[in-house]
Protein backbone atom coordinates (compact mmCIF):
# COMPACT_ATOMS: atom_id res chain seq x y z
CA UNK A 1 0.00 0.00 0.00
CA UNK A 2 1.26 3.48 -0.80
CA UNK A 3 2.14 5.63 2.18
CA UNK A 4 -0.72 8.06 1.66
CA UNK A 5 -3.18 5.18 1.31
CA UNK A 6 -1.89 3.72 4.51
CA UNK A 7 -2.24 7.05 6.27
CA UNK A 8 -5.79 7.29 5.05
CA UNK A 9 -6.57 3.75 6.13
CA UNK A 10 -5.08 4.31 9.55
CA UNK A 11 -6.95 7.55 10.06
CA UNK A 12 -10.10 5.78 9.09
CA UNK A 13 -9.26 2.88 11.39
CA UNK A 14 -9.28 5.36 14.26
CA UNK A 15 -12.43 7.23 13.23
CA UNK A 16 -16.09 6.53 13.34
CA UNK A 17 -17.61 3.79 15.45
CA UNK A 18 -15.24 1.20 16.82
CA UNK A 19 -11.70 0.66 15.50
CA UNK A 20 -10.47 -1.37 12.56
CA UNK A 21 -8.38 -3.84 14.47
CA UNK A 22 -7.03 -5.59 11.38
CA UNK A 23 -5.83 -2.37 9.75
CA UNK A 24 -4.21 -1.25 12.98
CA UNK A 25 -2.39 -4.54 13.31
CA UNK A 26 -1.28 -4.77 9.71
CA UNK A 27 -0.23 -1.16 9.26
CA UNK A 28 0.94 0.04 12.67
CA UNK A 29 2.39 -3.34 13.47
CA UNK A 30 4.85 -3.13 10.61
CA UNK A 31 5.70 0.56 10.64
CA UNK A 32 9.05 1.47 12.07
CA UNK A 33 9.80 4.57 14.08
CA UNK A 34 10.10 7.10 11.25
CA UNK A 35 6.84 5.96 9.69
CA UNK A 36 5.03 6.32 12.99
CA UNK A 37 6.54 9.76 13.41
CA UNK A 38 5.38 10.78 9.96
CA UNK A 39 1.94 9.64 10.96
CA UNK A 40 2.02 11.68 14.14
CA UNK A 41 3.25 14.80 12.38
CA UNK A 42 0.80 14.29 9.57
CA UNK A 43 -2.42 13.99 11.54
CA UNK A 44 -3.10 17.27 13.29
CA UNK A 45 -6.45 16.00 14.60
CA UNK A 46 -4.95 13.30 16.71
CA UNK A 47 -1.67 14.84 17.73
CA UNK A 48 -0.58 18.30 18.74
CA UNK A 49 2.87 19.82 18.83
CA UNK A 50 3.90 20.05 22.43
CA UNK A 51 6.08 23.02 23.57
CA UNK A 52 8.85 20.62 24.49
CA UNK A 53 9.15 19.43 20.88
CA UNK A 54 7.26 16.20 20.62
CA UNK A 55 3.96 15.25 19.09
CA UNK A 56 1.52 14.33 21.84
CA UNK A 57 -1.81 12.63 21.59
CA UNK A 58 -4.64 15.08 21.90
CA UNK A 59 -6.25 14.26 25.28
CA UNK A 60 -9.77 14.40 24.01
CA UNK A 61 -8.91 12.08 21.23
CA UNK A 62 -7.33 9.54 23.55
CA UNK A 63 -10.52 9.50 25.59
CA UNK A 64 -12.56 9.15 22.44
CA UNK A 65 -10.28 6.36 21.31
CA UNK A 66 -10.89 4.55 24.57
CA UNK A 67 -14.60 4.73 23.87
CA UNK A 68 -14.04 3.40 20.38
CA UNK A 69 -11.92 0.46 21.52
CA UNK A 70 -14.50 -0.37 24.17
CA UNK A 71 -17.47 -0.04 21.90
CA UNK A 72 -17.26 -3.68 20.79
CA UNK A 73 -16.82 -4.90 24.37
CA UNK A 74 -19.77 -2.84 25.52
CA UNK A 75 -21.96 -4.21 22.74
CA UNK A 76 -21.00 -7.81 23.54
CA UNK A 77 -21.63 -7.39 27.25
CA UNK A 78 -24.95 -5.65 26.63
CA UNK A 79 -26.02 -8.31 24.15
CA UNK A 80 -25.16 -11.17 26.49
CA UNK A 81 -26.99 -9.69 29.45
CA UNK A 82 -30.43 -10.83 30.50
CA UNK A 83 -32.84 -8.33 28.92
CA UNK A 84 -34.13 -7.38 32.37
CA UNK A 85 -30.67 -6.48 33.64
CA UNK A 86 -29.92 -4.75 30.38
CA UNK A 87 -32.97 -2.52 30.57
CA UNK A 88 -32.43 -1.87 34.29
CA UNK A 89 -28.89 -0.68 33.60
CA UNK A 90 -30.04 1.40 30.63
CA UNK A 91 -32.67 3.04 32.83
CA UNK A 92 -30.10 3.80 35.52
CA UNK A 93 -27.69 5.27 32.99
CA UNK A 94 -30.46 7.36 31.51
CA UNK A 95 -30.96 8.95 34.92
CA UNK A 96 -27.32 9.62 35.65
CA UNK A 97 -25.30 9.65 32.47
CA UNK A 98 -26.21 12.84 30.68
CA UNK A 99 -28.91 12.65 31.90
CA UNK A 100 -30.81 11.28 28.95
CA UNK A 101 -34.41 11.26 29.99
CA UNK A 102 -35.55 10.37 26.51
CA UNK A 103 -34.00 6.94 26.98
CA UNK A 104 -36.36 6.46 29.92
CA UNK A 105 -39.22 7.06 27.50
CA UNK A 106 -37.69 4.69 24.97
CA UNK A 107 -37.28 1.78 27.38
CA UNK A 108 -40.59 2.32 29.16
CA UNK A 109 -42.64 2.57 25.99
CA UNK A 110 -41.12 0.06 23.59
CA UNK A 111 -40.95 -2.97 25.89
CA UNK A 112 -43.77 -5.40 26.53
CA UNK A 113 -45.53 -5.03 29.88
CA UNK A 114 -43.87 -8.08 31.41
CA UNK A 115 -40.45 -7.07 30.03
CA UNK A 116 -40.73 -3.65 31.67
CA UNK A 117 -41.87 -5.28 34.89
CA UNK A 118 -38.86 -7.61 34.74
CA UNK A 119 -36.57 -4.63 34.25
CA UNK A 120 -38.11 -2.99 37.31
CA UNK A 121 -37.47 -6.13 39.36
CA UNK A 122 -33.87 -6.32 38.15
CA UNK A 123 -33.49 -2.66 39.08
CA UNK A 124 -34.38 -3.57 42.68
CA UNK A 125 -31.67 -6.20 42.74
CA UNK A 126 -29.03 -4.04 41.13
CA UNK A 127 -29.62 -0.73 42.83
CA UNK A 128 -31.66 -1.39 46.01
CA UNK A 129 -34.25 1.14 44.93
CA UNK A 130 -37.23 1.12 42.66
CA UNK A 131 -36.89 2.92 39.34
CA UNK A 132 -40.04 4.83 40.32
CA UNK A 133 -38.49 6.35 43.41
CA UNK A 134 -35.28 7.23 41.60
CA UNK A 135 -37.14 8.91 38.75
CA UNK A 136 -39.44 10.76 41.15
CA UNK A 137 -36.52 11.86 43.29
CA UNK A 138 -34.05 12.68 40.53
CA UNK A 139 -36.21 14.57 38.08
CA UNK A 140 -37.57 17.98 38.95
CA UNK A 141 -38.84 19.43 35.72
CA UNK A 142 -42.38 19.39 34.33
CA UNK A 143 -41.69 15.99 32.77
CA UNK A 144 -41.47 14.28 36.15
CA UNK A 145 -45.07 13.11 36.35
CA UNK A 146 -45.06 11.78 32.81
CA UNK A 147 -41.82 9.88 33.33
CA UNK A 148 -42.86 8.35 36.65
CA UNK A 149 -46.13 7.26 35.06
CA UNK A 150 -44.37 5.78 32.04
CA UNK A 151 -41.90 3.69 34.03
CA UNK A 152 -44.70 2.44 36.31
CA UNK A 153 -46.99 1.29 33.55
CA UNK A 154 -48.29 -2.26 33.13
CA UNK A 155 -50.38 -1.94 30.02
CA UNK A 156 -53.11 -4.31 28.91
CA UNK A 157 -51.63 -6.40 26.12
CA UNK A 158 -54.83 -7.73 24.56
CA UNK A 159 -56.27 -6.53 21.29
CA UNK A 160 -59.66 -5.33 22.49
CA UNK A 161 -60.14 -1.61 21.95
CA UNK A 162 -63.10 0.57 22.84
CA UNK A 163 -63.35 2.65 19.67
CA UNK A 164 -65.76 5.16 21.20
CA UNK A 165 -63.31 5.98 23.96
CA UNK A 166 -60.37 6.04 21.52
CA UNK A 167 -62.26 8.50 19.34
CA UNK A 168 -63.16 10.78 22.22
CA UNK A 169 -59.59 10.70 23.53
CA UNK A 170 -58.33 11.64 20.06
CA UNK A 171 -60.74 14.58 20.07
CA UNK A 172 -59.55 15.56 23.50
CA UNK A 173 -55.90 15.47 22.45
CA UNK A 174 -56.68 17.55 19.42
CA UNK A 175 -58.22 20.36 21.46
CA UNK A 176 -55.56 20.08 24.16
CA UNK A 177 -52.83 20.50 21.57
CA UNK A 178 -54.55 23.44 19.93
CA UNK A 179 -55.11 25.06 23.31
CA UNK A 180 -51.55 24.54 24.50
CA UNK A 181 -49.85 25.94 21.38
CA UNK A 182 -46.68 27.51 22.67
CA UNK A 183 -47.36 27.46 26.42
CA UNK A 184 -45.75 24.03 26.70
CA UNK A 185 -48.17 23.02 29.41
CA UNK A 186 -49.26 19.82 27.68
CA UNK A 187 -46.78 17.86 29.78
CA UNK A 188 -48.58 18.91 32.93
CA UNK A 189 -52.02 18.18 31.58
CA UNK A 190 -53.18 15.28 33.74
CA UNK A 191 -55.51 13.90 31.13
CA UNK A 192 -52.84 13.87 28.44
CA UNK A 193 -50.48 12.03 30.78
CA UNK A 194 -53.26 9.63 31.76
CA UNK A 195 -53.97 8.71 28.18
CA UNK A 196 -50.41 8.10 27.08
CA UNK A 197 -49.30 6.43 30.30
CA UNK A 198 -52.15 3.99 30.93
CA UNK A 199 -53.84 3.09 27.66
CA UNK A 200 -52.82 -0.07 25.83
CA UNK A 201 -50.76 0.16 22.66
CA UNK A 202 -53.55 -1.08 20.38
CA UNK A 203 -55.82 1.53 21.97
CA UNK A 204 -53.26 4.28 21.39
CA UNK A 205 -52.79 3.19 17.80
CA UNK A 206 -56.53 3.59 17.38
CA UNK A 207 -56.32 7.04 19.00
CA UNK A 208 -53.51 7.91 16.58
CA UNK A 209 -55.65 6.86 13.60
CA UNK A 210 -58.75 8.69 14.82
CA UNK A 211 -56.60 11.78 15.35
CA UNK A 212 -55.55 11.67 11.71
CA UNK A 213 -59.16 11.33 10.61
CA UNK A 214 -60.31 14.20 12.80
CA UNK A 215 -57.53 16.71 12.20
CA UNK A 216 -55.86 15.58 8.99
CA UNK A 217 -52.49 15.56 10.80
CA UNK A 218 -50.39 12.94 12.48
CA UNK A 219 -50.43 13.11 16.28
CA UNK A 220 -46.67 12.84 16.67
CA UNK A 221 -46.07 15.57 14.10
CA UNK A 222 -48.46 17.89 15.92
CA UNK A 223 -46.46 17.21 19.06
CA UNK A 224 -43.30 18.51 17.44
CA UNK A 225 -41.43 20.60 19.97
CA UNK A 226 -43.24 19.01 22.90
CA UNK A 227 -40.42 17.53 24.90
CA UNK A 228 -40.99 13.87 25.70
CA UNK A 229 -44.59 13.74 24.49
CA UNK A 230 -43.54 13.39 20.87
CA UNK A 231 -41.13 10.59 21.75
CA UNK A 232 -43.75 8.93 23.94
CA UNK A 233 -46.33 8.84 21.17
CA UNK A 234 -43.78 7.71 18.59
CA UNK A 235 -42.42 4.94 20.78
CA UNK A 236 -45.91 3.70 21.57
CA UNK A 237 -47.48 4.03 18.12
CA UNK A 238 -44.65 4.07 15.59
CA UNK A 239 -41.60 2.50 17.25
CA UNK A 240 -39.77 1.67 14.04
CA UNK A 241 -40.08 5.27 12.92
CA UNK A 242 -38.66 6.41 16.25
CA UNK A 243 -35.78 3.93 16.15
CA UNK A 244 -34.84 4.79 12.55
CA UNK A 245 -34.84 8.47 13.45
CA UNK A 246 -32.58 8.02 16.45
CA UNK A 247 -30.23 5.67 14.58
CA UNK A 248 -29.81 8.12 11.76
CA UNK A 249 -29.19 11.04 14.09
CA UNK A 250 -26.62 8.99 16.02
CA UNK A 251 -24.64 8.05 12.94
CA UNK A 252 -24.30 11.57 11.65
CA UNK A 253 -21.03 13.47 11.56
CA UNK A 254 -19.64 15.05 14.75
CA UNK A 255 -21.99 13.33 17.10
CA UNK A 256 -21.17 13.31 20.81
CA UNK A 257 -20.42 10.10 22.68
CA UNK A 258 -23.78 9.90 24.46
CA UNK A 259 -25.59 10.04 21.14
CA UNK A 260 -23.21 7.49 19.61
CA UNK A 261 -24.13 4.98 22.33
CA UNK A 262 -27.65 4.94 20.95
CA UNK A 263 -26.44 2.84 18.02
CA UNK A 264 -25.32 -0.03 20.25
CA UNK A 265 -28.35 0.34 22.47
CA UNK A 266 -30.91 0.25 19.70
CA UNK A 267 -29.34 -2.52 17.67
CA UNK A 268 -28.72 -4.77 20.66
CA UNK A 269 -32.19 -4.23 22.16
CA UNK A 270 -34.12 -4.56 18.91
CA UNK A 271 -32.16 -7.29 17.08
CA UNK A 272 -34.58 -9.96 18.27
CA UNK A 273 -37.70 -7.81 18.20
CA UNK A 274 -38.37 -5.71 15.13
CA UNK A 275 -35.02 -5.16 13.37
CA UNK A 276 -36.48 -6.20 10.04
CA UNK A 277 -39.16 -3.52 10.28
CA UNK A 278 -36.66 -0.93 11.44
CA UNK A 279 -34.48 -1.71 8.42
CA UNK A 280 -37.43 -1.27 6.08
CA UNK A 281 -38.41 2.01 7.68
CA UNK A 282 -34.81 3.26 7.63
CA UNK A 283 -34.41 2.41 3.97
CA UNK A 284 -37.73 4.00 3.13
CA UNK A 285 -36.92 7.19 5.00
CA UNK A 286 -33.26 7.75 4.25
CA UNK A 287 -32.84 6.01 0.92
CA UNK A 288 -29.91 3.91 2.07
CA UNK A 289 -29.97 0.48 3.66
CA UNK A 290 -29.11 0.30 7.34
CA UNK A 291 -26.36 -2.31 6.81
CA UNK A 292 -24.74 -0.04 4.20
CA UNK A 293 -24.86 2.91 6.55
CA UNK A 294 -23.25 0.83 9.28
CA UNK A 295 -20.54 -0.34 6.86
CA UNK A 296 -19.87 3.30 6.11
CA UNK A 297 -19.48 4.61 9.62
CA UNK A 298 -18.33 1.66 11.70
CA UNK A 299 -15.09 -0.31 11.85
CA UNK A 300 -13.66 -3.65 12.76
CA UNK A 301 -15.19 -6.12 15.19
CA UNK A 302 -17.79 -3.63 16.29
CA UNK A 303 -18.99 -3.18 12.73
CA UNK A 304 -19.05 -6.91 12.06
CA UNK A 305 -20.95 -7.56 15.25
CA UNK A 306 -23.57 -4.91 14.46
CA UNK A 307 -23.99 -6.23 10.93
CA UNK A 308 -24.50 -9.75 12.28
CA UNK A 309 -27.16 -8.53 14.70
CA UNK A 310 -28.86 -6.45 12.06
CA UNK A 311 -28.99 -9.41 9.68
CA UNK A 312 -30.82 -11.64 12.19
CA UNK A 313 -34.21 -12.76 11.10
CA UNK A 314 -33.47 -12.06 7.46
Amino acid at each position, binding site marked *: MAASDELGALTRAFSGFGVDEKALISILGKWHQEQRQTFRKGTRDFFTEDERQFERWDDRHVIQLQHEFLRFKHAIVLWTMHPWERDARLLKEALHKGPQHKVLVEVACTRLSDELLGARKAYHSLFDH*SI*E*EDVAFGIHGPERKLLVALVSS*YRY*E*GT*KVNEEIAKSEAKFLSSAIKGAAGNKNLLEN*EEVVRIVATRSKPHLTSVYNHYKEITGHYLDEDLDGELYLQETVQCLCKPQKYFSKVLDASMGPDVDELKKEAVTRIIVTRADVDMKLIKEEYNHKYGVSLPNKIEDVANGNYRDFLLTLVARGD
Partner: protein
Amino acid sequence: MATLICPEHPSPVADAEALRKACQGWGTDEKAIISILGRRNAIQRKLIRQAYEDMYQEDLVKRLESELSGDFEKAIYRWTLDPEDRDVVLLNVAIKQLPILDYRVIVEISCIRSHEELLAIKRAYQIRYKHSVEEDLAQHATGDIRQALSVYRYNGEEINARLASSEAEILHRVISEKAYNHEETIRIITTRSKVQILATLNHFKDDYGTSITKHLRDDSSHEYLSALRTAIQCICDHHKYYEKVVRCALNKPGTDKDSLTRVIITSAEKDLKEIKELFQKRNSRPLEHAVGKDTSGDYKAFLLTLLGKED
Protein backbone atom coordinates in the same frame (compact mmCIF):
# COMPACT_ATOMS: atom_id res chain seq x y z
CA MET B 1 -52.58 -16.80 61.30
CA ALA B 2 -55.74 -18.03 59.68
CA THR B 3 -58.95 -18.44 61.61
CA LEU B 4 -60.45 -20.65 58.95
CA ILE B 5 -61.08 -24.20 60.09
CA CYS B 6 -60.99 -26.68 57.26
CA PRO B 7 -60.61 -30.43 56.93
CA GLU B 8 -57.43 -31.87 55.45
CA HIS B 9 -58.76 -33.77 52.46
CA PRO B 10 -62.37 -33.00 51.68
CA SER B 11 -63.87 -34.47 48.55
CA PRO B 12 -64.60 -31.76 45.97
CA VAL B 13 -67.12 -34.05 44.29
CA ALA B 14 -69.01 -34.71 47.52
CA ASP B 15 -68.93 -30.98 48.31
CA ALA B 16 -70.21 -30.08 44.85
CA GLU B 17 -73.02 -32.59 45.20
CA ALA B 18 -73.96 -31.26 48.60
CA LEU B 19 -73.98 -27.68 47.32
CA ARG B 20 -76.11 -28.71 44.37
CA LYS B 21 -78.58 -30.31 46.74
CA ALA B 22 -78.58 -27.16 48.90
CA CYS B 23 -79.56 -25.05 45.89
CA GLN B 24 -82.23 -27.33 44.48
CA GLY B 25 -85.91 -27.24 45.07
CA TRP B 26 -87.80 -24.52 46.88
CA GLY B 27 -85.66 -22.32 49.03
CA THR B 28 -81.99 -22.75 49.72
CA ASP B 29 -80.20 -24.61 52.48
CA GLU B 30 -77.98 -21.72 53.60
CA LYS B 31 -76.65 -23.65 56.57
CA ALA B 32 -75.26 -26.33 54.29
CA ILE B 33 -73.63 -23.69 52.10
CA ILE B 34 -72.03 -22.04 55.11
CA SER B 35 -70.87 -25.30 56.62
CA ILE B 36 -69.17 -26.33 53.39
CA LEU B 37 -67.82 -23.17 51.81
CA GLY B 38 -67.18 -21.56 55.18
CA ARG B 39 -64.82 -24.40 55.99
CA ARG B 40 -62.79 -24.67 52.80
CA ASN B 41 -59.60 -22.87 51.87
CA ALA B 42 -58.92 -21.22 48.50
CA ILE B 43 -57.49 -24.31 46.82
CA GLN B 44 -60.31 -26.50 48.08
CA ARG B 45 -62.92 -23.98 46.93
CA LYS B 46 -61.34 -23.87 43.50
CA LEU B 47 -61.53 -27.67 43.23
CA ILE B 48 -65.18 -27.59 44.29
CA ARG B 49 -65.95 -25.02 41.57
CA GLN B 50 -64.21 -27.14 38.98
CA ALA B 51 -66.02 -30.30 40.10
CA TYR B 52 -69.36 -28.46 40.09
CA GLU B 53 -68.71 -27.16 36.57
CA ASP B 54 -67.74 -30.63 35.35
CA MET B 55 -70.74 -32.31 36.93
CA TYR B 56 -73.47 -29.76 36.26
CA GLN B 57 -72.12 -27.56 33.39
CA GLU B 58 -72.76 -24.48 35.47
CA ASP B 59 -70.62 -21.96 37.33
CA LEU B 60 -71.16 -22.49 41.05
CA VAL B 61 -70.57 -18.83 41.76
CA LYS B 62 -73.29 -17.77 39.33
CA ARG B 63 -75.66 -20.29 40.82
CA LEU B 64 -75.06 -19.02 44.33
CA GLU B 65 -75.49 -15.45 43.10
CA SER B 66 -78.97 -16.29 41.87
CA GLU B 67 -79.99 -18.33 44.91
CA LEU B 68 -78.86 -15.95 47.63
CA SER B 69 -79.40 -12.30 48.37
CA GLY B 70 -78.31 -9.31 50.40
CA ASP B 71 -75.17 -9.08 52.48
CA PHE B 72 -74.97 -12.84 52.75
CA GLU B 73 -74.91 -13.24 48.96
CA LYS B 74 -72.23 -10.57 48.61
CA ALA B 75 -70.10 -12.25 51.24
CA ILE B 76 -70.44 -15.76 49.81
CA TYR B 77 -69.82 -14.51 46.27
CA ARG B 78 -66.61 -12.73 47.22
CA TRP B 79 -65.47 -15.55 49.45
CA THR B 80 -65.87 -18.19 46.77
CA LEU B 81 -63.89 -16.32 44.12
CA ASP B 82 -60.14 -16.89 43.81
CA PRO B 83 -58.31 -14.41 46.06
CA GLU B 84 -56.97 -12.35 43.17
CA ASP B 85 -60.37 -12.29 41.44
CA ARG B 86 -61.90 -11.15 44.69
CA ASP B 87 -59.50 -8.21 44.85
CA VAL B 88 -60.27 -7.52 41.18
CA VAL B 89 -63.97 -7.27 41.98
CA LEU B 90 -63.30 -5.15 45.08
CA LEU B 91 -61.12 -2.78 43.07
CA ASN B 92 -63.60 -2.50 40.23
CA VAL B 93 -66.42 -1.69 42.61
CA ALA B 94 -64.25 0.77 44.52
CA ILE B 95 -63.15 2.55 41.34
CA LYS B 96 -66.64 2.81 39.90
CA GLN B 97 -68.25 3.97 43.18
CA LEU B 98 -70.25 7.15 42.95
CA PRO B 99 -70.08 10.01 43.64
CA ILE B 100 -66.43 9.43 44.49
CA LEU B 101 -64.35 6.32 44.29
CA ASP B 102 -63.58 4.39 47.46
CA TYR B 103 -59.99 5.52 48.09
CA ARG B 104 -59.69 3.36 51.14
CA VAL B 105 -60.07 0.04 49.37
CA ILE B 106 -57.71 1.07 46.60
CA VAL B 107 -55.01 2.27 48.97
CA GLU B 108 -55.54 -0.75 51.23
CA ILE B 109 -54.99 -3.22 48.43
CA SER B 110 -52.06 -1.33 46.95
CA CYS B 111 -50.25 -1.06 50.28
CA ILE B 112 -51.00 -4.39 51.91
CA ARG B 113 -50.80 -6.91 49.09
CA SER B 114 -47.42 -8.37 48.21
CA HIS B 115 -45.79 -7.89 44.82
CA GLU B 116 -46.82 -11.33 43.62
CA GLU B 117 -50.41 -10.76 44.75
CA LEU B 118 -50.58 -7.36 43.05
CA LEU B 119 -49.24 -8.77 39.80
CA ALA B 120 -51.78 -11.62 39.90
CA ILE B 121 -54.51 -9.04 40.56
CA LYS B 122 -53.44 -6.87 37.62
CA ARG B 123 -53.39 -9.84 35.27
CA ALA B 124 -56.73 -11.16 36.53
CA TYR B 125 -58.23 -7.67 36.07
CA GLN B 126 -57.04 -7.56 32.46
CA ILE B 127 -58.51 -10.99 31.77
CA ARG B 128 -61.84 -10.10 33.31
CA TYR B 129 -62.35 -6.59 31.95
CA LYS B 130 -60.13 -6.56 28.83
CA HIS B 131 -58.23 -3.49 29.94
CA SER B 132 -55.90 -2.66 32.78
CA VAL B 133 -56.86 -1.61 36.30
CA GLU B 134 -54.50 1.36 35.92
CA GLU B 135 -56.58 2.67 32.99
CA ASP B 136 -59.80 2.42 34.99
CA LEU B 137 -58.28 4.03 38.04
CA ALA B 138 -56.73 6.86 36.01
CA GLN B 139 -59.98 7.46 34.22
CA HIS B 140 -62.12 7.68 37.35
CA ALA B 141 -59.75 9.41 39.72
CA THR B 142 -57.95 12.70 39.76
CA GLY B 143 -54.58 13.56 41.18
CA ASP B 144 -51.96 11.24 42.46
CA ILE B 145 -54.25 8.46 43.63
CA ARG B 146 -54.09 7.46 39.96
CA GLN B 147 -50.60 6.13 40.56
CA ALA B 148 -51.60 4.13 43.64
CA LEU B 149 -51.53 0.73 41.98
CA SER B 150 -48.68 1.37 39.57
CA VAL B 151 -45.58 1.82 41.65
CA TYR B 152 -43.57 -1.35 42.11
CA ARG B 153 -41.87 -0.53 45.38
CA TYR B 154 -38.40 -1.84 46.16
CA ASN B 155 -39.10 -4.74 48.50
CA GLY B 156 -35.63 -5.40 49.88
CA GLU B 157 -34.23 -4.57 53.29
CA GLU B 158 -31.76 -1.81 52.41
CA ILE B 159 -32.39 1.51 54.13
CA ASN B 160 -30.66 4.83 53.60
CA ALA B 161 -30.57 6.46 57.05
CA ARG B 162 -29.46 9.86 55.80
CA LEU B 163 -32.31 9.90 53.31
CA ALA B 164 -34.77 8.87 56.03
CA SER B 165 -33.67 11.79 58.11
CA SER B 166 -33.87 14.33 55.30
CA GLU B 167 -37.25 13.07 54.11
CA ALA B 168 -38.61 13.20 57.67
CA GLU B 169 -37.62 16.84 57.63
CA ILE B 170 -39.40 17.41 54.34
CA LEU B 171 -42.57 15.81 55.73
CA HIS B 172 -42.42 17.93 58.81
CA ARG B 173 -42.05 21.10 56.80
CA VAL B 174 -44.98 20.14 54.60
CA ILE B 175 -47.18 19.41 57.60
CA SER B 176 -46.38 22.61 59.44
CA GLU B 177 -47.22 24.55 56.29
CA LYS B 178 -50.42 22.46 55.93
CA ALA B 179 -49.57 21.92 52.28
CA TYR B 180 -50.72 18.32 52.30
CA ASN B 181 -50.94 17.71 48.61
CA HIS B 182 -47.40 18.83 48.31
CA GLU B 183 -45.62 16.86 45.62
CA GLU B 184 -42.88 15.76 47.96
CA THR B 185 -45.24 14.09 50.44
CA ILE B 186 -46.83 12.13 47.64
CA ARG B 187 -43.47 11.24 46.16
CA ILE B 188 -42.19 9.89 49.45
CA ILE B 189 -45.25 7.93 50.49
CA THR B 190 -46.03 6.50 47.06
CA THR B 191 -42.56 5.62 45.76
CA ARG B 192 -40.28 4.80 48.68
CA SER B 193 -40.00 1.21 49.86
CA LYS B 194 -41.96 0.19 52.95
CA VAL B 195 -38.87 -0.23 55.10
CA GLN B 196 -37.57 3.15 53.99
CA ILE B 197 -40.89 4.80 54.85
CA LEU B 198 -40.89 3.13 58.26
CA ALA B 199 -37.38 4.43 58.89
CA THR B 200 -38.47 7.90 57.80
CA LEU B 201 -41.53 7.84 60.07
CA ASN B 202 -39.43 6.69 63.00
CA HIS B 203 -37.09 9.61 62.41
CA PHE B 204 -40.13 11.86 62.32
CA LYS B 205 -41.30 10.56 65.67
CA ASP B 206 -37.82 10.84 67.18
CA ASP B 207 -37.17 14.33 65.87
CA TYR B 208 -40.59 15.90 66.32
CA GLY B 209 -42.18 14.00 69.17
CA THR B 210 -45.42 12.76 67.63
CA SER B 211 -46.32 10.23 65.01
CA ILE B 212 -47.15 11.67 61.64
CA THR B 213 -50.73 10.42 61.51
CA LYS B 214 -51.72 12.65 64.40
CA HIS B 215 -50.77 15.65 62.28
CA LEU B 216 -52.75 14.41 59.34
CA ARG B 217 -55.94 14.19 61.30
CA ASP B 218 -56.94 17.84 61.20
CA ASP B 219 -58.63 18.17 57.85
CA SER B 220 -60.69 15.00 57.67
CA SER B 221 -62.94 16.24 54.88
CA HIS B 222 -60.08 16.22 52.45
CA GLU B 223 -60.10 12.84 50.70
CA TYR B 224 -56.54 13.21 49.65
CA LEU B 225 -55.48 13.46 53.27
CA SER B 226 -57.51 10.46 54.26
CA ALA B 227 -55.93 8.42 51.47
CA LEU B 228 -52.48 9.47 52.67
CA ARG B 229 -53.30 8.57 56.25
CA THR B 230 -54.67 5.20 55.14
CA ALA B 231 -51.51 4.50 53.17
CA ILE B 232 -49.31 5.25 56.16
CA GLN B 233 -51.42 3.15 58.51
CA CYS B 234 -51.42 0.21 56.09
CA ILE B 235 -47.68 0.41 55.60
CA CYS B 236 -46.86 0.75 59.29
CA ASP B 237 -49.13 -1.88 60.81
CA HIS B 238 -51.84 -3.34 58.68
CA HIS B 239 -53.23 -5.52 61.51
CA LYS B 240 -53.84 -2.43 63.58
CA TYR B 241 -55.36 -0.77 60.53
CA TYR B 242 -57.73 -3.69 59.90
CA GLU B 243 -58.75 -3.76 63.56
CA LYS B 244 -59.69 -0.13 63.27
CA VAL B 245 -61.68 -0.69 60.08
CA VAL B 246 -63.63 -3.49 61.73
CA ARG B 247 -64.17 -1.53 64.94
CA CYS B 248 -65.48 1.51 63.05
CA ALA B 249 -67.63 -0.70 60.83
CA LEU B 250 -69.28 -2.22 63.90
CA ASN B 251 -69.65 1.06 65.73
CA LYS B 252 -71.28 2.76 62.80
CA PRO B 253 -75.05 2.93 63.21
CA GLY B 254 -76.42 0.32 60.83
CA THR B 255 -73.00 -1.35 60.61
CA ASP B 256 -70.80 -0.89 57.57
CA LYS B 257 -71.23 -4.42 56.30
CA ASP B 258 -69.13 -3.94 53.16
CA SER B 259 -66.06 -3.09 55.19
CA LEU B 260 -66.72 -5.81 57.75
CA THR B 261 -67.13 -8.42 55.01
CA ARG B 262 -64.06 -7.21 53.20
CA VAL B 263 -61.74 -7.44 56.18
CA ILE B 264 -62.99 -10.79 57.42
CA ILE B 265 -63.03 -12.45 54.00
CA THR B 266 -59.62 -11.14 52.98
CA SER B 267 -57.96 -12.12 56.25
CA ALA B 268 -59.69 -15.37 57.21
CA GLU B 269 -56.98 -17.42 55.53
CA LYS B 270 -54.12 -15.11 56.42
CA ASP B 271 -54.01 -13.15 59.65
CA LEU B 272 -57.51 -12.75 61.06
CA LYS B 273 -56.27 -14.29 64.31
CA GLU B 274 -53.88 -11.37 64.91
CA ILE B 275 -56.66 -8.91 64.10
CA LYS B 276 -58.97 -10.72 66.56
CA GLU B 277 -56.35 -10.52 69.28
CA LEU B 278 -55.87 -6.79 68.69
CA PHE B 279 -59.64 -6.30 68.76
CA GLN B 280 -59.93 -8.13 72.05
CA LYS B 281 -57.16 -6.07 73.56
CA ARG B 282 -58.56 -2.78 72.33
CA ASN B 283 -62.24 -3.38 73.07
CA SER B 284 -62.15 -5.83 75.96
CA ARG B 285 -64.44 -8.26 74.19
CA PRO B 286 -63.93 -10.82 71.46
CA LEU B 287 -64.59 -9.87 67.85
CA GLU B 288 -67.07 -12.76 67.51
CA HIS B 289 -69.10 -11.21 70.28
CA ALA B 290 -69.25 -7.82 68.56
CA VAL B 291 -70.05 -9.36 65.19
CA GLY B 292 -72.72 -11.56 66.78
CA LYS B 293 -74.37 -8.55 68.35
CA ASP B 294 -74.36 -6.32 65.30
CA THR B 295 -75.26 -8.72 62.52
CA SER B 296 -77.97 -11.30 62.02
CA GLY B 297 -79.17 -14.30 60.09
CA ASP B 298 -77.14 -16.24 57.58
CA TYR B 299 -74.72 -13.35 57.11
CA LYS B 300 -73.87 -13.51 60.81
CA ALA B 301 -73.58 -17.29 60.78
CA PHE B 302 -71.18 -17.13 57.83
CA LEU B 303 -68.94 -14.48 59.38
CA LEU B 304 -68.78 -16.37 62.66
CA THR B 305 -67.82 -19.54 60.80
CA LEU B 306 -64.96 -17.72 59.09
CA LEU B 307 -63.93 -16.30 62.44
CA GLY B 308 -63.31 -19.86 63.59
CA LYS B 309 -66.47 -20.81 65.38
CA GLU B 310 -66.61 -24.52 65.99
CA ASP B 311 -69.71 -26.31 64.80
